[in-house]
């Protein structure tokens, strides 16, 4: 009881399960609707109260708001307790800053935390990866740290000069942490800080960056978009800000941005697995989507999947954030298939920006057109191909529903393994001759012919619902002149048909794969790089994860394939599915450039040629009109700085320009 009381006192945002949500709504509305006439006020209250108390008639099966929040809070408690339980209080040489934060938040192992705070910072390392857990520990232990501790902490901030990093997650972590560290000592002068700026000066710069990132993201899309790994690196700083920033504008913006990032995730999740095309993904997570940070967040935030923990969840637990009910419902609602379109952008291109580049306040980028078909049984998603990220890009992927995804490689994807200083210097400051080497110091698979992720300038992807077409045109001197498509060990009934189609079943879906050029089967990671453990944590256990999975590898420079997915439930048997596929019109040629005419299972006639237009039933797809968000649950126009989230009869509207959010309800037919 004492500990819980302490928690509430330390974290004013934190709310225990609310036994009377309708009263909370009343209180919230009295704040939000100051000045609104009484009868309108009561009408709005009635509508919202009906909604939060589970009265949305469209989905009577949803938990009541009180139950949902209670369950969420219980998971938050377990998250923190998990890290407390990991603590070896007899060993001051072990334990992260996150573990320290969890302990001091719960009032546990205080003396260990005090000692560990010193040993873990001898010396401080990691730049922004040091800054943000340090800030968490500072605020989580605000009532615990004594004068000596505070003096020690201040000395760290005076003497350790963290690097701001080279990408947006780094910068957001850096500036959010800097802001909050300075906020704790707001009157401190330039002598108190490593960079010689006063607390107020640092806060001003940091706030300006954070607002700019929000402006760019809500206008043109996220640069490190839809990353099942790096979603955590965005939620961490946003959670920190929401929990402890005192500036009301930043607090509201950070809450809205958490909602924004989570919406981005939940519309492309299947049981907590992040599907579709991804900006960044590490190899072991490409093989096992259920292991990603996104899935761990999905468990804690929405109760999806199996209990898994990560450090980002500690921040979300402690910061007091509660995901809106509408996100919970979208995360769970996979009753009907839908198409999700999203506009993103590449990371900033420093060099070789190319003719498709556009400029945003002195920075160059190109649009990323994402298309995802979300089906109750599977998700097939893609981006257009090309060098959209410097490393780790997953251009397209399929995932399917599986009862035990932690033990299953329930995924499929294709890649043209590309490694070139052109790509490295496009996105990094490094020199032409060292950039690949330096990338591979930490992302060891980058320069490997059997790598599992990465973009290629010779890859073009087109998608219509459950049909995907990939075309490739490689020059002779390409470093790794082949393409490869993953067929995991968890696929069943894999067969190569004389017609040229390769068939397989992944859980509840049938897969048809039509290569345009001959290939051969090779084990995943046929150089043994990852299986041997190179790459440290991101190849941990890779041997087991890859198992007997194989790549279908083709070395034809002009190349391509069709992937056609269908639910098992729509066919009597694999044989029936095969017959249906073999009956489809499929004309392709590879020279001089690949092109294909294909009639998909749903009857759509798809025509495309490399570097050419994509026609569906004769109509050209106009990418210039691609929306920022377009799907049944989300709408946003390019440069709108807004996001409309919908589910059932509820509409939740985020307006970043005016820093407001609102909920309304529309009648359901």
């Amino acid at each position, binding site marked *: 009881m004492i500990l819980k009381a302490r928690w509430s006192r330390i974290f004013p945002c934190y709310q225990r399960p609310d036994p009377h949500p309708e009263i909370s709504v009343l209180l919230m509305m009295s704040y939000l609707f100051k000045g609104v006439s009484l009868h309108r006020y009561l009408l709005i209250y009635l509508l919202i109260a009906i909604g939060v108390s589970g009265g949305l008639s469209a989905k009577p099966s949803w938990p009541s708001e009180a139950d949902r929040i209670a369950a969420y809070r219980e998971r938050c408690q377990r998250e923190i307790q998990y890290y407390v339980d990991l603590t070896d209080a007899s060993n001051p040489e072990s334990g992260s800053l996150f573990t320290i934060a969890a302990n001091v938040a719960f009032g546990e192992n205080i003396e260990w935390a005090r000692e560990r705070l010193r040993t873990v910072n001898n010396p401080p390392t990691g730049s922004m990866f040091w800054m943000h857990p340090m800030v968490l520990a500072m605020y989580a232990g605000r009532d615990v740290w004594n004068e000596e501790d505070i003096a020690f902490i201040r000395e760290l901030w005076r003497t350790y000069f963290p690097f*701001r990093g080279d990408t947006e997650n780094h910068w957001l972590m850096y500036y959010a942490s800097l802001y909050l560290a300075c906020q704790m000592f707001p009157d401190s002068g330039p002598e108190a800080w490593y960079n010689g700026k006063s607390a107020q000066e640092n806060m001003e*710069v940091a706030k300006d*960056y954070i607002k700019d990132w929000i402006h760019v993201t809500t206008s043109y899309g996220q640069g490190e978009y839809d990353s099942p790994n790096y979603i955590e690196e965005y939620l961490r700083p946003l959670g920190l800000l929401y929990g402890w920033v005192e500036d009301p504008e930043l607090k509201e913006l950070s809450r809205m941005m958490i909602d924004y990032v989570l919406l981005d995730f939940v519309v492309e999740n299947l049981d907590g697995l992040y599907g579709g095309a991804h900006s960044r993904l590490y190899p072991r997570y490409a093989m096992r989507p259920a292991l990603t940070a996104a899935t761990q967040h999905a468990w804690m935030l929405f109760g999806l999947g199996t209990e898994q923990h990560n450090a980002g969840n500690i921040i979300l637990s402690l910061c007091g954030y509660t995901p809106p009910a509408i996100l919970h419902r979208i995360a769970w609602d996979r009753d009907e298939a839908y198409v999700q379109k999203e506009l993103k952008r590449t990371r900033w291109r420093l060099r070789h*920006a190319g003719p498709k580049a556009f400029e945003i306040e002195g920075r160059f980028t190109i649009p990323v057109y994402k298309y995802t078909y979300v089906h109750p049984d599977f998700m097939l998603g893609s981006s257009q191909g090309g060098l959209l990220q410097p490393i780790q890009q997953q251009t397209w992927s399929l995932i399917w529903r599986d009862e035990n995804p932690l033990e299953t490689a329930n995924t499929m994807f294709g890649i043209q393994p590309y490694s070139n200083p052109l790509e490295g210097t496009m996105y990094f400051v490094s020199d032409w001759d060292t950039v690949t080497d*330096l990338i591979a*110091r930490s992302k060891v698979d980058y320069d490997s012919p059997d790598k599992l992720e990465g973009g290629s300038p010779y890859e073009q992807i087109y998608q219509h619902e459950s049909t995907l077409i990939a075309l490739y045109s490689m020059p002779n001197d390409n470093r790794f002149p082949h393409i490869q498509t993953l067929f995991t060990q968890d696929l069943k009934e894999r067969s190569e048909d004389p017609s040229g189609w390769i068939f397989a079943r992944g859980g509840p879906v049938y897969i048809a794969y039509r290569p345009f050029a001959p290939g051969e089967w090779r084990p995943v990671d046929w150089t043994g790089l990852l299986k041997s453990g190179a790459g440290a944590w991101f190849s941990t256990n890779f041997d087991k994860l890859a198992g007997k999975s194989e790549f279908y590898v083709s070395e034809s420079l002009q190349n391509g394939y069709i992937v056609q997915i269908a639910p098992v439930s729509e066919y009597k048997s694999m044989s029936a599915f095969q017959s249906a596929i073999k009956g489809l019109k499929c004309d392709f040629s590879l020279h001089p450039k690949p092109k294909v005419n294909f009639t998909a299972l749903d009857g759509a006639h798809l025509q495309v040629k490399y570097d050419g237009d994509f026609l569906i039933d004769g109509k050209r797809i106009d990418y210039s009109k691609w929306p920022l968000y377009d799907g049944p649950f989300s709408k946003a126009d390019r440069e709108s700085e807004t996001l409309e989230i919908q589910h059932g009869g509820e509409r939740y509207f985020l307006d970043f320009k005016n820093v407001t959010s609102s909920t309304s309800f529309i009648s359901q037919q």
Partner: protein
Amino acid sequence: MSKRNLILLLTLAWPLINSSAQKTDTPMVLFTAMMMTKAQQASSVPTDSGVLLRDKSTGEWLRFGPAIQMISSATADPSDPDTIFLACGNGIVRSQDGGESWRLVTGWRESDVLQIAVDPEDGNRVYAASAWGVTLSTDGGDTWQASNTGLPEYFSKNIAIDYRKTSRLLLATGTGLFESRNRGKTWKRITSFPQVAGLRLRRSESDPDLWICGSEGRGVWVSTDDGKTWKATAPALKEANIYGVAIDPFEADNLAAGGWGTGVYLTEDRGKSWEKARGKLPSDNITSVLFDVNVSHRIWASTFEEGTYFSDDFGNSWTTAELDGAYVQDLGFLPQN
């Protein structure tokens, strides 16, 4: 001689193009801006980084300023040796007391700075080349603004001020050399230089008409008409990426160049004929070369992760100056405080 002219004359003795230190009586000390990458395993972070000064008497390298990751260069104000700028990933860090204290003087927009130049006539005018383009200050570095008009892409590696006419600047970018005649307000391409990255730009101290520039993929280029027109030189290096070029402050006919896989090349006739240095270095991957301003004809060369060396016999033999494991971004001279 007027005071103004005296100051101008004195400023000629200071480094005008980043690390291209000038022959001078003012005590100068060799610096390196480097990061330790050789021991960097399974990590994106070098094991150490920052600016180091070489103690002339002991040969020991001593830290100068904060240990900052991704530091590219250091530059002193020619009119005030106590004012020093560090070009860093985080932005521009300035000292106004000879290195006793430091302050990050830029905001978040001015980052990934690669090199800085200070107007020798007016220390308030400071120019920086960065991965995001050119940024300039007119108040000694207190405030900064972007200045990229005329540049097709902004990535800029080196910037130099024409000390005979300080409104004129030369800029080495990712797409070639550019010139400004209005203190960086607008930029115009120097068409005789290829449209490839200029990696290292230096000017002779004794012959202001002589410039040299290393390029990405197109070797070494020289100008003998004050940077107006450029010609390729060193045919053996014509397709190389040249990261280091230098002109001897004691004898402008002596040039040096080095790049990836090339070793160090030298000429004693302004580039009419080049020869590879006979002395063997542990690696032919050269990241920086420099002529000494204190010791006549001494040449410095840094290899990628295999140490920094000097030669007093025009490359016939090399002596180690340590720094094994370092990725040297720049070698140069700063005033000895």
